[in-house]
């Protein structure tokens, strides 16, 4: 078996490039969609608890109760969207979803505080979003405790209130604990993968369906040359997309890029190769575009979810964690997040680089072999 002929590869690359660039709708998908997606999703991927819609039922209507509500709103975490004096309004506000948190201050609240009798405040959260609920509950609890301490101090018993542990938390790599900084680099990975799959998964299946593949395969073109010809233009498009969306992330969303750009580009190139090799593999094992499409559907969702984009890989049950080792998304997300936030370099991330490279090579080799066996 001779090696790929550069002429044949160049000829195929030229043909693919012409086909990719000809249709304005394809150009739209290739260059506009990724940027647009990052702009939209960059704003969407935000789990920060800020201005949580809060409903207040204040049976006390005293200066103290108003100060407690103020203590909530001044944190910036809670925003009062409705007030009422009837407890029955809470269920309807939460049912409709117009509020996520409800605070109910009982009658006699100010009197209890003044008399140093234990006062109670009820906090209700909508648990349907368990994550937000956990965090909102935590914040609310601390607001109430701090308010209580302050009241106690005002009551003269400062020594007691100051006792105990003073836990100070500091977040490294992302001191503001902004979820966007963590999620936007991941969106880059997902958007680029999607592009690679969209451009390759139907590529071979389509040529098979319309008969041009058979015409190509009676010329001296080898399967390896065909695959390279299909890979190179898409890899270039992928890299352009990566640079575009990275620019949006850094310049528009102010995500810090602490590591080296070179390390990012190398990782991206390997990842893109892995992604489009998988796309080509899907395309070669499918007999029709429809089949390719369905296989792609089946691949993308698990790849995105097991990759740790929306849910940390560590919290998954063990079998899913093992399975995720085969997911290029998981490795790339690890790499981009480490490069962006921690400033890691290739040295610290080599297992991920090697893993991605191995996937790219295996997928490409397997599609060439598989293609040769089924020829047309």
């Amino acid at each position, binding site marked *: 078996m001779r090696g790929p002929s550069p002429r044949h590869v160049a000829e195929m690359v030229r043909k693919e490039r012409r086909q990719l660039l000809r249709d304005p709708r394809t150009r739209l998908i290739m260059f506009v969609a990724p940027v647009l997606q990052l702009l939209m999703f960059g704003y969407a991927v935000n789990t920060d608890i800020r201005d949580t819609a809060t409903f207040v039922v204040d049976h006390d209507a005293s200066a103290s109760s108003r100060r407690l509500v103020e203590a909530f709103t001044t944190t910036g975490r809670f925003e009062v969207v409705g007030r009422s004096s009837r407890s029955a309004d809470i269920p309807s506000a939460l049912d409709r979803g117009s509020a996520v948190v409800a605070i109910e201050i009982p009658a006699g609240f100010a009197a209890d505080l003044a008399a140093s*009798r234990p006062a109670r405040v009820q906090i209700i959260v909508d648990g*349907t979003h368990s994550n937000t609920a956990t965090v909102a509950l935590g914040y609310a609890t601390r607001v109430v405790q701090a308010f209580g301490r302050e009241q106690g101090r005002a009551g003269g018993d400062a020594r007691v209130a100051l006792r105990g*542990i003073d*836990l*100070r938390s500091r977040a490294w790599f992302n001191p503001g604990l902004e979820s966007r900084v*963590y999620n936007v680099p991941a969106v880059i990975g997902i958007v680029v993968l999607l592009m690679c799959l969209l451009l390759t998964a139907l590529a071979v299946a389509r040529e098979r369906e319309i008969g041009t593949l058979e015409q190509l395969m009676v010329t001296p073109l080898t399967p390896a040359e065909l695959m390279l010809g299909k890979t190179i233009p898409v890899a270039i498009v992928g890299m352009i997309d990566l640079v575009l969306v990275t620019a949006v992330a850094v310049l528009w969303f102010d995500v810090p890029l602490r590591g080296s750009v070179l390390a990012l580009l190398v990782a991206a190139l390997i990842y893109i190769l892995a992604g489009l090799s998988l796309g080509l593999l899907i395309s070669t094992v499918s007999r029709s575009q429809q089949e390719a499409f369905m296989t792609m559907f089946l691949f993308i969702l698990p790849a995105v979810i*097991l990759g740790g984009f929306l849910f940390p890989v560590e919290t998954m049950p063990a079998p899913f964690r093992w399975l995720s080792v085969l997911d290029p998304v998981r490795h790339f997300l690890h790499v981009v997040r480490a490069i962006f936030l921690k400033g890691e370099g290739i040295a610290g991330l080599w297992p991920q680089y090697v893993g991605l490279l191995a996937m790219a090579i295996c997928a490409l080799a397997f599609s060439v072999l598989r293609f040769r066996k089924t020829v047309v």
Partner: protein
Amino acid sequence: MTFGRTLAIARKEALQLRRDPRSLTLGFLIPPFLIVFFGYAITFDVDDIRLAVWDADRTQASARLVDAFVASGYFRVVDRLERYPDATEALQSGDALAVLAIPRGYARDLAAGPSPVQLLVDGSDANTATIAIEYAQGIASAHSRRVTLAERDARPTLVPDSRAWYNPSLDSRNMVVPGLVAVIISILAALLTALTIAREWERGTMEQLVSTPVTRLEIVAGKLAPYLAIGLFDVLLAVGIGTLLFDVPFRGSLLLLLAMTSVFLLAALGFGMFLSAALKSQVLATQFAIVATYLPALLLSGFIFAIANMPRVLQLATYLFPARYYVTVTKAIFLKGVGIEVLWPQALLLSALASLAIAATVAVFRKEVA
């Protein structure tokens, strides 16, 4: 529009589906499979936080504080650090997600006044980090109450009485499963129909079809019908899986869910068909359908990221995606058990989207044939 001709198209579509085992698999088996798969895979529950401890105090009191962290069940000690600077390495390498730093003199200060303890957290994943900090704060304040209570005097004057409605244990599975049903069906619906019309144009059977007296609306309606049936079947199956396998409560009315699902499916399937009719190419229809459904269904639907957190413009944009309404609907019917008196805006807007999608499909269709 005659019922007979619509039925003829629907029957043809159903027959083709029946002979196409892959489409059938996609329609019937994939959604339940994905729901089971992700139902197990996805948890938000942060309950095994890798903690490295630097204890410079080395007293009984400091050991008890570490014990309190471990006993909470949320933290697991993976490393004991010799030197404070080792904390950098532990977090950088990802071996630990948080470092608990107890300075020398902790026990002494505890008796006298506030005793500073530091928690260093890997903030990369803000979500996990925030929850870890929440847990640590809770543990620390409970522990200090226990320690100071021994001295009799520190009865807190203000007690928050917190509870979570609809999901009292704050189990993330109760949130994930209903949302997942909505997301998976949303993606699937557009994909099922994205190829139907384009395929017939590419294969030339559409010219044959439009040369018969059948109207555009009949073709569109007939093609929608079998997929609507598949979608409804999938949702029933998903309710079964969610309640029986994952013990997710189902508090609302099944009939209402099916009715809302039908309207939603018409919008989502109609959108896929619009792409198919407008683009007339399987490759392009696929590309547009995936770009327009996959990530929006995951990210703009409120499944994970609260819509209220998004900028105003983006919030308005989410109204264009049927998935957004359907996530609200499934969560509300599964967990809140509310009825049409709460969900009527969703029903209304979904109906509008469905009509728009079908009207647009018929419109682009007509232009092509004329």
